[in-house]
């Protein structure tokens, strides 16, 4: 079953401003070009707690889940 992209887009609304800003940039640049598999990876990543997600995005914590690494890389692009 394909994932509704609008739902995933809404999941990019987070509790921390830091993440909102990172996702705002990501949504503009990358979101519409993502394939279904990438959307599924993103959907999975978005289940993380905000502080953990931010730590992976800012590089203070390594991302140890293989399927998240590509998305973390895109989110980290300045």
């Amino acid at each position, binding site marked *: 079953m394909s994932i509704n992209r609008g*739902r995933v887009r809404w999941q990019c*609304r987070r*509790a921390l401003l*830091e993440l909102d800003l990172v996702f*705002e940039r990501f949504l503009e640049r990358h979101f519409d070009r993502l394939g279904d598999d990438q959307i599924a990876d993103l959907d999975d990543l978005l289940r993380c707690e*905000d502080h953990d997600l931010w730590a992976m995005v800012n590089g203070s914590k390594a991302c140890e889940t293989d399927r998240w690494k590509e998305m973390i890389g895109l989110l980290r692009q300045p």
Partner: protein
Amino acid sequence: MNVAKRTFDAVIVGAGGAGLRAALQLSEAGLKTAVLTKVFPTRSHTVAAQGGVAASLGNTTEDNWHWHMYDTVKGSDWLGDQDAIEFMVKKANEVVIELEHYGMPFDRTDNGKIYQRPFGGHSMNYGQAPVMRSCAAADRTGHAMLHALYQRNVRANTQFFVEWNALDLIRNSEGDVLGVTAIEMETGEVSIFHAKATIFATGGAGRIFYSSTNAFINTGDGLGMAARAGIPLEDMEFWQFHPTGVAGAGVLITEGVRGEGGILRNDSGERFMERYAPNLKDLASRDVVSRSMVTEINEGRGCGPDKDHVLLDITHLSPETIMKRLPGIREISIQFAGVDPIKAPIPVVPTCHYQMGGIPTNYKGQVVVPKDGNPNVPVQGFYAAGECACASVHGANRLGTNSLLDLLVFGKSAGETVVEDFQSGNLTLKPLPDDAADMSLARIARLENQKNGTDVHEVRLAMQRTMQKHAGVFRFNELLTEGVTRILEVAEQSLHTEIGDKSKVWNTARTEALELDNLIEVAKATMISAEARKESRGAHVRDDAPDTAENPNGRDDKNWLKHTLWYRDGNRLDYKPVNLKPLSDDVEPIALAKRTY
């Protein structure tokens, strides 16, 4: 009326700290309780709170609620209601211990008690020395609190409606509140939540400003709904600003950076704080630093192509110090300012942080409005708690760590009041008017059919820039006057927003347009209330209300010791007295004095 209807004893809008604390009270008392939230509960903005929750446990230094009450009244610049403040500080220990029992992982002292740390504005013995009053779970207090409360709610069978966006308050001809309308994002369907009690816990609206530390979800949804339903908004001119947010992004740069030796500089590289605060310089209090920065910018000494920010310089610190003591700040600066603070200074600007005003409530969490000469008559069936409410405990300025306390105490209090009213038979399910959902359906239909309209992002940006320029941290009469005209123009544009995406399900463009409807109400309330208040008090500082012998710090108690009430209808302003009388005889009123530290 072609709208699905769900019936509950109580409906709560918002699942941050206040909403979850209120929900717990209701669910544990056996009330059938629905919590509507536009994001998953543990993704509410309460997560961002780091500092802690204030309670005079006295675990590390001597403390008592009398001192906490004094600090809070003084912090509020005497605009806080002393009955509500007494209630809050007296309840603090109870709500913190409860949270501990819910499994909140507070930091501990060596002997196993809750560890407490000092925080700005909190003192012992009526301002004599700093006190250790803030109970924290490392720098994730809000996160830990929200998780503890959420788990407890799951245990109590609270029913969550996640990714449901509340649209409008439902009132009958007597003005009683009967519930809300809401749209389910997954289906795009509008439903009525019909309830005996409705509690708003929707948080603040910090996104009305261009530079804000608030997450994108903080769009003042409860305030917009209340305003559209004829409920006034109280003291909306009072917003707390933090001096150092990253310019253009708003992300907070902690005071600790200046503590480590960070220096604020203007366009010529001058350390300008030496002129404004010769002794404390860059470490002067938040409001002094913020106003000095704005003065530099307003007088043409700002930095960058638009001369709209100043620089926070730590390049003189060794890279080792920065990496070791300020690692998070380096990441933030690289991510959001595009500069490595080891090599170049960080562009910063005073940034909106917290909303002191809100939906007027009493200490019981009941929403109160003026009626027949009484300024505080409860609206039947309507309650509010947390940042969206104005109890008023923060008055003109909030102390750090009092916001998490506010949402625990008044979340619980609102819940207790609903349970009492329910058990005494005072709450009944009143019949819905035939037009209960009409306003919401009309708003959705307008968005659906709007042609040649305005762009949501552009209107929101115009609102944010107008608020930042005209009602920022330091306020000027001419700018406020112009600001009123300008924000009413923006409000007019907001009536004609058009969205390209007309899809029914998961339409985030529609959600953002509906959020803008709420933001704009808060922006109007703020600008109009600020223009009218011709004094300086707490966070509302006017250039034309300076510090004089008659009006210390520009505060004019003779004319302005009163709460503002803004009504959406005609942008009418009303005022009501501040309650200077505590709740009990346990304490004397805290007498008016100049606020100095």
